[in-house]
């Protein structure tokens, strides 16, 4: 007979997920101490923008990476969220609304969500390439209309607001940039956690299923269109929050927040960071702010470099930087990283040579084109080049050719080594499976 009242203690063994705590803890720590390391005004505003971009790229990846939906007009939702947020901020400034400034981005989020509900139904009717085209069309439409209605969109000068408004809570006025940074860091952390949680929900899982095999999802009994639609709405909410935070940061919202360039930037950098892993867009967001703010100050050829890097990424590493990191982590976890260390260093060195040669040539061409008035000399990585001088060109071409040659040699060696390492790992995995 089964004991009715078994008083023996029961044990439940669930391993403490140390890794998860460590990673999230590190994430929070980095966000906390970053402004203490980089203190200049530009750095602070860039860190703020990184936080905003992280939310935006993660929200975009809800569609791209998790849903397989390529959206060319996603800036619409963050942009419209921005507009709603700044109008709300102005209402708060006028005293007509008693909302604390720190909650204004939520209004942006709700706005983004509302527009996603409105436009998303039509947009998600199709998947794949037609979906991309629809988002392109909707994006163009919204951008054209944003210029036509200066009442809501503020015309060319846009809508400006003042975040130093209302009664300060605990002495926080959001006047100094660092206070705004910490607010945004808080939002970023919470939104990242929420979006990570989303991937764990049934909706998130079904979204992955819709990406991989929509026909089967239908057979299992889910309506793929609704799954996509709800994911679209969720994505729109977080994009709206990103837009609302941007409105607080810049205190002005102009028509550029909904234009095609902004949408393209989200797409490009999310893909660059890696759409396959959850943390890929975080890397992409950091790159986005660095490239858009700093790269253009370093070189006028930044658009070309961006296009080239993106194209090569698509060809050789479609999983983005995060996939490269994960592949190497896997190799490291099997202890096979040391042998290929040397190859990596050689690859980097020869790759840098190729880049130096190609970069020098590109810079010289740009210099001739745009800066010829300032004379043929230009500085490149500490050396002075003469864009009209034969020796500069010959030198750059020589470096490029030699670099390419060496790179090829190292690359072939590396590919062989990598293949060998992967084989060994496969054998190891089989061995471990056999032991179980």
């Amino acid at each position, binding site marked *: 007979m089964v004991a009715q009242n078994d008083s023996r203690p029961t044990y439940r063994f669930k391993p403490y997920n140390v890794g998860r705590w460590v990673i999230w803890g590190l994430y929070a720590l980095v966000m906390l101490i970053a402004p203490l390391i980089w203190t*200049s*005004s*530009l750095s602070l*505003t*860039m860190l703020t*923008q990184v936080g905003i971009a992280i939310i935006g790229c993660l929200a975009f990846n809800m569609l791209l990476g998790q849903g397989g939906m390529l959206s060319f007009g996603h800036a619409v939702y963050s942009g419209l969220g921005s507009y709603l947020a700044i109008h709300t901020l102005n209402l708060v400034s006028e005293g007509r609304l008693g909302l604390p400034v720190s909650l204004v981005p939520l209004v942006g989020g709700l706005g983004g969500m509302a527009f996603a509900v409105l436009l998303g139904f039509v947009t998600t009717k199709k998947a794949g390439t037609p979906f991309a085209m629809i988002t392109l069309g909707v994006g163009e439409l919204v951008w*054209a209309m944003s*210029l*036509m209605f*200066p009442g809501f969109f503020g*015309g*060319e*000068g*846009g809508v*400006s607001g*003042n975040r*130093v408004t209302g009664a300060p809570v605990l002495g926080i006025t959001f*006047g*100094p940039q660092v206070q705004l940074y910490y607010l945004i860091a808080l939002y970023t952390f919470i939104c990242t956690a929420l979006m990570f949680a989303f991937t764990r929900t049934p909706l998130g899982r079904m979204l992955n299923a819709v990406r991989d095999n929509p026909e089967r999802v239908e057979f299992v009994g889910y309506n793929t269109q609704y799954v996509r639609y709800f994911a679209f709405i969720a994505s729109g909410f977080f994009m709206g929050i990103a837009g609302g935070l*941007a409105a607080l940061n*810049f*205190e*002005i919202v*102009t*028509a*550029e*927040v909904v234009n095609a*360039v902004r949408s393209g930037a989200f797409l490009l950098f999310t893909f660059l960071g890696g759409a396959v892993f959850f943390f890929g867009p975080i890397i992409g967001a950091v790159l986005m702010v660095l490239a*858009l*703010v700093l790269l*253009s*100050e*370093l070189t*006028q050829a*930044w*658009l070309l470099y961006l296009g080239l890097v993106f194209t090569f990424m698509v060809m050789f590493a479609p999983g983005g930087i995060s996939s490269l990191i994960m592949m190497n982590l896997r190799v490291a976890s099997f202890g096979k990283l040391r042998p290929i260390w040397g190859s990596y260093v050689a690859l980097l060195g020869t790759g840098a040579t190729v880049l130096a040669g190609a970069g020098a040539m590109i810079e010289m061409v740009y210099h001739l084109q*745009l*800066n*010829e*008035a*300032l004379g043929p000399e230009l*500085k490149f990585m500490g050396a002075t080049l003469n864009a009209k001088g034969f020796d500069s060109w010959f030198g750059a071409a020589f470096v490029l050719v030699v670099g390419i040659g060496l790179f090829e040699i190292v690359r072939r060696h590396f590919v062989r080594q990598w293949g060998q390492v992967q084989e060994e790992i496969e054998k190891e995995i089989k061995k471990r499976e056999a032991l179980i």
Partner: protein
Amino acid sequence: MTLNRTWRTTALAAAAITAFCGAALAQSGQTVKIAFIDPLSGPFANIGQNQLKSWQFSAEQFNKKNAAGVKFEFVAFDNKASPQESLNNLKAAIDQGIRYVVQGNGSGAAAAISDAVTKHNERNPGKEVVYINYAAVDPDLTNSKCSFWHFRIDADTSMKMEALTSYMKDQPTVKNVYLINQNYSHGMQVSRYFKETMARKKPEVKIVGDDLHPLGQVKDFAPFVAKMKAAGADSIVTGNWGQDLTLLIKAAKDAGLNADFYTYYAVTGGVPTAMAAGVGGKVRVVAVGHNSIPGTVIKWQDEFKKKFNDDWYTLQTYNSIQMLSEGMARAKSVDPVKVATAMSGMKFMGFAGEVQMRKADHQLQQPLFITEWSKANAKNPYSVENTGFNFQEVKAIPAYVSSTPTSCQMKRPGA
């Protein structure tokens, strides 16, 4: 003056500047760094690059001799035509210790910078920055969004329209006017101001059409031209720029519309090259200057052409630096607060005569010119975009005619 874009050396120089400004020594012999924030890459790169060269060229000329005895140096920032990016550039400039900013390409960026500068000055006394807007013509910047720290050198949309209509009302050929503009605030303002001022000056002029088209989206203006023909238009007033203006003029010529064009921006951006192929009627422009103003303009535009093989069309660079040096001389300092106070309300000699920076709204009151696209001749030899044509003066409009009232309620420091 060399274009200096690496961080380290500018930071060093910036430290030097801050030390100077802090010590409040006499301003003579100092170097004044000015941040240039405009697009240097992307679709507007050639305009931005031209303007940067214009500023550097003007600075070079002024460094030989100017009222304040200072040296001007321009530090370039690429805002990629984005207002939000302009704010990043502004922060970078402030980090480098630069206290003067110039910008002109786009009223969106102008509004962002003006707003940010005002807030920065409020929140950081002792680190004030002055913003000189040399080409963004949205009237709001000197009306509802005016600021003590913002100085506009170009004439705004309403002033240009006052000048244009005062010319048009005397033209017997102007009977049926067709308005066509880009559908955003600038185009809407051009249309609105024309209707208002013309109703005031000569109500008999009929407005036979008022079209707004999406910005940069229309590839074929032939349907609009057909509409103009059907309406019997003899004059077309447009604030269009760039491709929108080029395609419009081309379509008008192709369809045989011989109406006269009255434009704001036919002077730049590839429009002269397209017009060289032939235009239907006359093309007239309202602007702050033209290619045959005696004195500085003819001298500098030839030198500029020789040096850069490009046209110097941003004449505002002369007035801006002249204003700055006069202001610094009168204030006996390069401190932005003192200089701004000196410049507010100041009269000085521009390239076309005496001008005044109006105290009430910091809008420069200056003479304007109605010019016409014509073949170069002995009296007007300059060749715009190497076409053999240039813009010749048809009428000079004195400053008081084009002056428009302002609703600015300016908050002054210390007030």
